[in-house]
């Protein structure tokens, strides 16, 4: 990238770059990680509530009004599934399993698809 004071243009318009499937799985790995980070404080508070007593434990299930519960539940189901699977994919690639381009493309596609299915499943369960 250009240094400060360097007037020369730099082409880096991300919307005009065609990203391979692995890059899409990767940026979503990062985005889902941020979502899960944001979920940590509520999770810690939820743990505290769940142990405080039977009433609080039961109240956890209906802490949020229905539309929010479903939306947040769906997003978190997607984020957790995507992050976990993409993470396993990377751990395997670290030790040389599936790190050839063809397999890496296939596993990236699988991660994206399964995470989407998990989100759909969570939404369906929330709605029914």
């Amino acid at each position: 990238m250009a240094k400060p004071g360097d007037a020369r243009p730099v082409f880096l318009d991300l919307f005009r770059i065609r990203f391979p499937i692995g890059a899409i799985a990767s940026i979503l790995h990062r985005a889902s990680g941020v979502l899960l980070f944001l979920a940590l404080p509520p999770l810690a508070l939820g743990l505290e509530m769940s142990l405080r007593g039977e009433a609080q434990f039961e109240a956890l299930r209906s802490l949020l009004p229905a539309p929010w519960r479903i939306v947040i539940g769906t997003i978190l189901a997607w984020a957790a599934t995507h992050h976990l699977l993409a993470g396993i994919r990377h751990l395997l690639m670290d030790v040389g399993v599936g790190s050839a381009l063809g397999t890496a493309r296939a596993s990236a596609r699988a991660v994206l698809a399964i995470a989407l299915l998990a989100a759909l499943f969570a939404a369906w369960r929330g709605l029914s």
Partner: protein
Amino acid sequence: MRLFRGQRAWLVQRISALLVLALLAAGGLALLLGPPLDHARWHALATGVHGGPLIMLLFAALCAHAWVGMRDIVLDYVQPRALRLSVLTLVALVLFAVLVRVLLTLAAHFAPPG
């Protein structure tokens, strides 16, 4: 084992990931194998001699993992020094608060039999 300055974060990320995976798998299995989860069963599990420390370990691994990941994001996208320091401090404070909260919660309810 010698840990180097660049490798350490990478290793922490990998080891914490493996820990989270193992603990989630064990926890999921424990929940699935037993009867449906109600408060009594959850309380017994989370305050037990194994459950309590394991939940603490899970949160410790989650926070370590989140720290490395969030720091990577900051190192990539946040270039101005002052802003970078503020964001990193904020992330560290949040994770520290989570750990303290979980530790206090688990300690308050910790009830090993006998």
